[in-house]
């Protein structure tokens, strides 16, 4: 049997150097944050020896910044840090709720936002909420940094756009104005400790008359990646988020879904319920803007 190695540099330059070194030597290296997916995958069969690069000690990945027009959430901020941050919760209630849905309380102390995104599960809970909030991935590499919209970051089941030698530092989210809010809902057969059978994240902006002027709708667990559904957003824009518009958005989401039948649910079930969750999430987001009780 070969052996495993573990590196936990405390600065970005060193981390990039380790990546570069492995790249040049053709050695397998895997970036490791909370480990709540990686360790499970390791145990479930992919036991090939490799180096784990722990990026939790890098300052940039551990930062939350709310200065300026954007919010920045470091890639290794864990779910519990997210939902305990009241300012973030105020700004992105849907995103923060999605982080609160992952695993158990214990898991939420280890599982990170960046890890959930990089793992790129079609059912990843925070991913649809990040799509809905137009998040930008901040990526560092040897030859400098780059930015990538989150919907371009996820490229397939378990696949992302990071090139060898690159690290996801964090996510930049445009700060919502007072008339914008979001919501994320998922369906599981139980109440917790489960994986989304269907998920929907919605961000909505209303004008002073309560008319929807902007919307983003993202759906998950109904295709190989989380999907943006512009047709659903269009159905909401221009409406007062009334039942007709909500139904149209629901239908758009159902139509956009490309689900499969598996042990977690049937194709027909997912197609229908993704519409239901789109409608419910849109309504919650709109009510949040209006300051109405949910």
């Amino acid at each position, binding site marked *: *049997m070969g052996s495993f190695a573990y590196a936990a540099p405390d600065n970005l330059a060193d981390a990039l150097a380790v990546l570069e070194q492995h790249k040049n030597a053709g050695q397998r290296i895997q970036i490791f944050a909370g480990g709540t997916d990686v360790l499970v995958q390791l145990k479930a069969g992919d036991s090939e020896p490799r180096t784990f690069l722990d990026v939790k000690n890098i300052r940039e990945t551990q930062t939350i910044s709310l200065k300026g027009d954007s919010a920045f959430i470091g890639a290794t901020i864990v779910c519990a840090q997210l939902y305990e941050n009241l300012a973030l919760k105020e700004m992105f209630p849907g995103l923060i709720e999605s982080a609160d849905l992952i695993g158990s309380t214990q898991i939420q102390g280890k599982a990170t936002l960046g890890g959930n995104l990089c793992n790129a599960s079609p059912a990843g809970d925070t991913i649809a909420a990040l799509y809905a909030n137009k998040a930008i991935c901040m990526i560092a590499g040897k030859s400098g940094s780059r930015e990538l919209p989150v919907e371009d970051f996820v490229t397939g089941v378990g696949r992302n756009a990071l090139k060898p030698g690159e690290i996801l530092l964090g996510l930049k989210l445009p700060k919502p104005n007072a008339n914008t809010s979001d919501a994320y809902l998922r*369906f599981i*057969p*139980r*109440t*917790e*400790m*489960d*994986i989304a*059978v269907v998920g929907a994240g919605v961000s909505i902006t209303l004008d002073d008359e309560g008319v929807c002027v902007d919307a983003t709708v993202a759906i998950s667990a109904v295709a190989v990646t989380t999907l943006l559904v512009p047709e659903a957003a269009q159905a909401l824009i221009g409406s007062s988020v009334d039942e007709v518009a909500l139904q149209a958005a629901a239908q758009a989401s159902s139509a956009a879904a490309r689900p499969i039948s*598996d*042990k*977690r*649910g*049937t194709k*027909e*079930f997912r197609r*229908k*319920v993704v519409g*239901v969750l789109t409608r419910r999430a849109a309504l919650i987001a709109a009510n949040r803007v209006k300051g109405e009780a949910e």
Partner: protein
Amino acid sequence: MSEAVNFKYIGTRPVRPDGVDKVTGRANYGADANLPGMIHGVVLRSPHAHAIIKKIDLSQVRLLDGIYAAVSGNDFPEVSSGSMGGEGGGDYKDLAANIMARNKVLYHGHAVAAVAARTRELAVEALALIQVEYEILDPVMTLDAAMAEDAAILDESMFTQGVDPKPKYPSNIASRIEFKRGDIEQGFLEADIIVESEFRTPTVHQGYIEPHACLASINEGGQATLWCSTQGHFDVRAASAKVLNMDLCDIKVIPSEIGGGFGGKTVVYQEPVAILLSRISGRPVKMVMDRDEVFRASGPASASHTRVKIGARSDGTLTAMSCWMAFEAGAFKGSAIMPGAMCIFTPYKVANFYIEGFDVVVNKPKVAAYRAPGAPQAMYACESLMDELARKLEMDPLELRLVNAVEEGVQAAYGPKFNAIGFRECLEVAKQHPNYTRALKEGQGRGVAAGFWFNVGMQSSAEVHINENGTVMVIEGNPDIGGSRASMALMAAETLGVPYEKVRVVVADTENAGYTNVTGGSRVTFATGMAVIQAAQDIISQAKQRAAATWELDEDQVDWQNGHAIPMPGVNADVEPLSLARIAANSGRTGGPLLGRASLNAKGAGPGFSVNIAEVAVDRETGKTDVIGFTAIQDAGKAIHPAYVEGQLQGGAAQGIGWALNEEYIYDEKGVMQNAGFLDYRIPVASDLPKIDTHIVEVANTAHPYGVRGVGETPIVAPLAAVANAVRDAIGVRITELPLSPSRVLESIDGA
């Protein structure tokens, strides 16, 4: 009902003696046993659901450094057919073939070889070097497929038992059984109303949290010691001896603490393999299943298909009940079709019934007992149809059951006349219960169902030793699953008249306890409890003799009250009462230590009846069912430790709710289970359940000194139908197949 008795200790709720070690993690479970020089055994499992083994080659793996032993079916002795008895039933020949496949694999995950290596990782890696050649056969995965005329046959030597004349061709139907009374056709002619339907339930697992684990060590003289997690170490000894052709007395089995069993740990899987690997390697061998193996290769509960027909007069009186039921046995014959068939109509007085049952083999793991084996599936069908009958009659469903409920003196469907039972009392409690009448909101529903289980007695032994300071040791042979140490201590304390805190209970191994049947069949508090009481009475009798000798009285002039010997009323003796402590302190002068014992084959296990009320809310857009209220009412005879009786009621309800709503083995077309883990095999998590309200009815079982009847199994019988009836109430549509998963519920709502 017997008159009320004032107990001093029985009926109180002391902390369980094993509690501290269990909550601090100090308790030793199956995987916690370790020995110097220990190596690790793992099993190679079949990648096919149904195949002939053409060849197994272990030569490569045996050459690998660090591998100490490798075995396949050929390395085990031939085992001849013979009934295993006990709760799980089954045949020793099948057991042997289940432990290690011979010639044929019958389910995905069936053991085909095993290796023992320096580390578990090395053993797992070494499995890849074992070459097995298979001829793949069609998997037979459902009752319909197995019973079809042209079905692939699992066992060419199996001819259906119980049909006349004897069949000419082999079949997957292992046996057919029939029970009847009266004239079924006449019964249906007398009915004003007839309802009928058919119901299906899936393969489900007990879901015990602790996987099967054992450590075996055999010496050069051929004497083996086995540490394992089991519900019955004497059964492990018997099965291991049979499978390995060893003498019983050459195997000592030491039971660990047990992290759940529910019937599933009455069977052996790895233990004989570990002994054989230890014999070959000369080292202690540890084997621990992972969760995947537990799901794929231990014994789940039968999937079932039941057609039921019920006839009644317009006042609700039942005139006829009939059913056709088939249970999957898994890879080898021996489902719980017999108890299922015997209990399906038992709660009701009906002059005419007809029950036909089939035990059917399929390419799934061999089923094992699961709390009240056979009853949940059977009574799900009966109680769902009773609910429909009540709806048709526009009658309160509890009232319908009260009209027909069995009671003392009635001849049970399965034969004997009932002694005192508490079914009517449970129904009355349910009717009066606030949870039965509180208002429900739109989209919510309520359902009720009755449950029944026979309970068993069987063999138990116990000893009571009095320490030199008068404290009490109870030695017995039932692994403590549900708090039985506490119950034994309470019964010993009550009998002897000494405080609970002065009693210690030891679960002893096969060499230190008298023969005792498994912890199963809801028998321990009843049967082993009776042995403990008798052993304590033996002590009292000896203590009275010692007091009589001390006082120079005749033995029959001494009485025993509150833990003291006193002169009988009317006996003229100027003496102070002698406490058990005083008698123990003087025992060296009066004949030596006090040692009481008893052994018995307990008869008269009182049947258990229950009534459950389920309240649900169904999301009509997603099909998701939330259980918002659940009330479990059950006759316990006498609750020795009420908190643990309530725990049994709540645990059974939780498992029954899981069975009703989400649990099922999901297979692909090749017969490979798709959800062999707790992520996708969805037992309820704590937040899925409401507070489960309990009400203990106490109609004393006259066969037990304190009135005990078993309580461990009945609680899982009624929840399936109670939940299904509540969902029917909420959505207005009857779904006749479990689980009531969101997809299935949504489909039914949308299809209605």
